[in-house]
């Protein structure tokens, strides 16, 4: 493509960048995608090998040469931290994601209606605005995103009271359906669903960007057992390359330039002029001109680019309100039940996280506090959701055994305890819960440039400052207690692991904020169209626009937003 005809430059080729390339080329625009990493072929991810791909971290930036740094609890440190969620290759992190695609909902966007900030101790540091648009505004974009990323799932899985219509816990337009049916159930699904039913907490089969049938020339999932942290060598799992970029490149209007590392954004008189980049470590900076620039390099990296570019920041908002989801991991063993799936040939029959439990999304309903208060013992109002799966058949052995626990205090077991764990898990049914909660957004949680450290390209790395609010930590403990109550008292399980959120967080994959979108230019970096308030025609499409963290896996929401922005930009 001639550089003179470029309508837009997109920085990053992952979920947001790929979607932008798809939508903008569909509109007839000529785009150049600058991707720091190299192109990979699906075949490069074979043979499956947990040592190579996961333990030796073959696909992620090396922490010793390409870290971000964490300032620690005293905000004075500069400790290298591994960016395991920032995959530098064509397709970005969509190449190794888990492809859990639950939507953010009313409860995530209309924050003031659901979160009772007044009841939270030490709430003066919390800033939880409503999003600049509603769930109803977003709904059409969710539908397009789900159909173009080929999500498998089912609307209306939850059965209400007798005579009432089945409903979707992620609210859907009546009559809406996903493009593919849900993935086949794991052997534990029946037991888990009936246990949660008894507890009055209905679970459902969560939407995944994983094929349940052959579609678009890509086969149905083979349940190989190598999911998160591995790339899919048969393209059953959607990624930016096999969906968005494939379409964009097919138009002939998308020029994908790999090993092009953006160093800063160019602008003049408050208007974007293009992107500076290098093509080798410490290489000569070059400039590519374009009338519009879309950043989608993941939140911390996009914030880093904004800081490196010296984008005007009169209100000191760039990099602030960084959020990570508070997280809990809870494991149970069921001594009375045999291991799931003992009859099948292979041990792995499902991808992790397909069963979703959203009952704790709202803990106490703020709007109807008195009549509908469900748990008067806690001040928590907004909660989160669980992904539920079997550690034995859904997680590869090294990851599972390194995290093996035999109770709250016996963690990372070894010796006799490890033998006991192994004997138990290969004989008895086990279940693990991964909790994702909303995060209290705080101004001081932020991204800066590290003055003392450069990456292997010769560019200052991002330095993060982060403390989880006590609310986040109490929320994860609450989630552990509620689930334990159900699994032990109704399911007959025994607790094996209960990890809750600590105050410190050196980095986590569910990352958002730090380039907030909003309606008030003094309190946000981006306008409601995700365009910089300061530099016209500079847009940001990754999850950094999110004003608050929400409480689900963020992918589909940021993708839907990329559709919304790219279909409307002029």
């Amino acid at each position, binding site marked *: 493509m001639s550089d003179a005809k470029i309508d837009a430059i997109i920085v990053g080729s992952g979920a947001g960048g790929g979607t932008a390339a798809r939508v903008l080329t569909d509109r007839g625009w000529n785009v150049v995608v600058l991707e720091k990493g190299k192109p990979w072929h699906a075949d490069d991810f074979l043979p499956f090998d947990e040592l190579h791909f996961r333990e030796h971290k073959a696909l992620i930036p090396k922490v010793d040469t390409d870290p971000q740094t964490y300032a620690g609890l005293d905000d004075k440190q500069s400790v290298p931290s591994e960016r395991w969620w920032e995959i530098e290759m064509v397709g970005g992190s969509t190449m190794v994601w888990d492809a859990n695609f639950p939507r953010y909902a009313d409860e995530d966007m209309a924050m003031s209606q659901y979160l009772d900030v007044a009841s939270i101790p030490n709430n003066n540091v919390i800033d939880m605005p409503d999003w600049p648009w509603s769930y109803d505004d977003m709904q059409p974009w969710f539908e397009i995103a789900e159909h173009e990323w080929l999500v498998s799932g089912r609307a209306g899985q939850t059965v209400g009271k007798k005579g009432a219509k089945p409903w979707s816990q992620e609210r859907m337009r009546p009559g809406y359906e996903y493009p593919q049916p849900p993935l086949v159930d794991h052997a534990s699904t029946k037991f888990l669903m009936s246990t949660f039913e008894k507890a009055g907490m209905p679970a459902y089969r969560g939407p995944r960007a994983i094929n349940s049938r052959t579609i678009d020339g890509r086969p149905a999932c083979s349940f190989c057992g190598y999911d998160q942290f591995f790339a899919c060598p048969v393209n059953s799992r959607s990624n930016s390359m096999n969906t968005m970029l494939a379409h964009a490149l097919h138009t002939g209007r998308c020029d994908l330039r790999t090993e092009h590392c953006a160093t800063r954004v160019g602008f003049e008189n408050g208007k974007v002029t293009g992107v500076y980049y290098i093509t080798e470590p410490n290489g000569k900076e070059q400039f590519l001109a374009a009338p519009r620039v879309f950043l989608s390099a993941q939140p911390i990296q996009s914030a880093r680019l904004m800081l490196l570019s010296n984008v005007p920041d009169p209100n000191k908002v760039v990099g602030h309100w960084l959020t990570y989801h508070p997280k809990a991991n809870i494991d149970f063993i069921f001594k009375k039940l045999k291991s799931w799936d003992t009859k099948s040939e292979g*041990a792995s029959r499902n991808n992790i996280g397909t069963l979703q439990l959203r009952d704790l999304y709202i803990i106490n309903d703020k709007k109807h506090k008195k009549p509908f208060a469900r748990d008067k013992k806690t001040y928590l109002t907004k909660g989160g959701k669980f992904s539920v799966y079997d550690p034995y058949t859904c997680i590869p052995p090294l990851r599972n055994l390194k995290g093996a626990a035999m109770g709250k205090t016996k963690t990372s077991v070894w010796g006799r305890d490890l*033998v006991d764990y192994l004997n138990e898990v290969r004989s008895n049914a086990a279940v693990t819960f991964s909790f994702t909660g909303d995060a209290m957004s705080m101004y001081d949680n932020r991204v800066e440039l590290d003055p003392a450290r450069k990456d292997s390209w010769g560019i200052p790395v991002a330095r993060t400052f982060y403390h989880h609010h006590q609310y986040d930590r109490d929320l994860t403990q609450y989630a552990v207690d509620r689930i334990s109550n159900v699994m032990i008292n109704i399911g007959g399980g025994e607790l094996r692991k209960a990890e809750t959120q600590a105050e410190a967080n050196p980095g986590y994959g569910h990352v958002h904020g730090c380039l907030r979108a909003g309606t008030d230019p003094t309190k946000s970096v981006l306008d409601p169209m995700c365009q910089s308030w300061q530099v016209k025609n500079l847009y940001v499409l990754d999850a950094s626009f999110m004003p608050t963290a929400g409480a689900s896996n963020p992918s589909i929401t940021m993708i839907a937003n990329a559709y919304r922005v790219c279909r409307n930009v002029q």
Partner: protein
Amino acid sequence: MWNLVRTGQHFFTPEQRAQCEALFEAILPGGETNPGARDADAVEYIDGLLTMSHEIYFDIPTLQKLYPAGLAAIDAAAQQAYGASVTEIATEQVATLLQQMKDGKLPGSMPAADQTKFFTNVRAQCIEGCFGDPRWGGNKNGVMWRWYGWIVPAERFQRTTLAPQKLPIKRKAKAKAPARKSRRART
């Protein structure tokens, strides 16, 4: 397809390899109905890995320094506590020393933080050598996958010939008293 090229080289001296094997067996001890680290030859994995480059795994240069130091420290502590090498004492005794290592309280000159780091790595690389793909040298004949039930359905494991058990070495009373005295004198 990516292709693992193993050099066939080994990093450890025969003594270090035997010491590491003793440590790994304490992390995952074999029993009558379960294979252990020795059955999986898990030490072959780390012995080969440590000859590889930073490109294969970024932490290899660190481990190349940590392993010889950690093995020497735990062997010296075994000599001090039991009057024998870590390769000669019973697995439970090795476990006692490993617990001290984990807590950063192993007698000797190794800094506490390094001790904990060494223990964490010994545990990690033992599990990797046991349950990783056999192409890396450990998990001999897929023994752990077959018992655990990864890729293939779980099989029973029954040890037919029991390995000669090392009996716990009791420290001689003579050696005990001066050792304590000298420690006290140092502090």
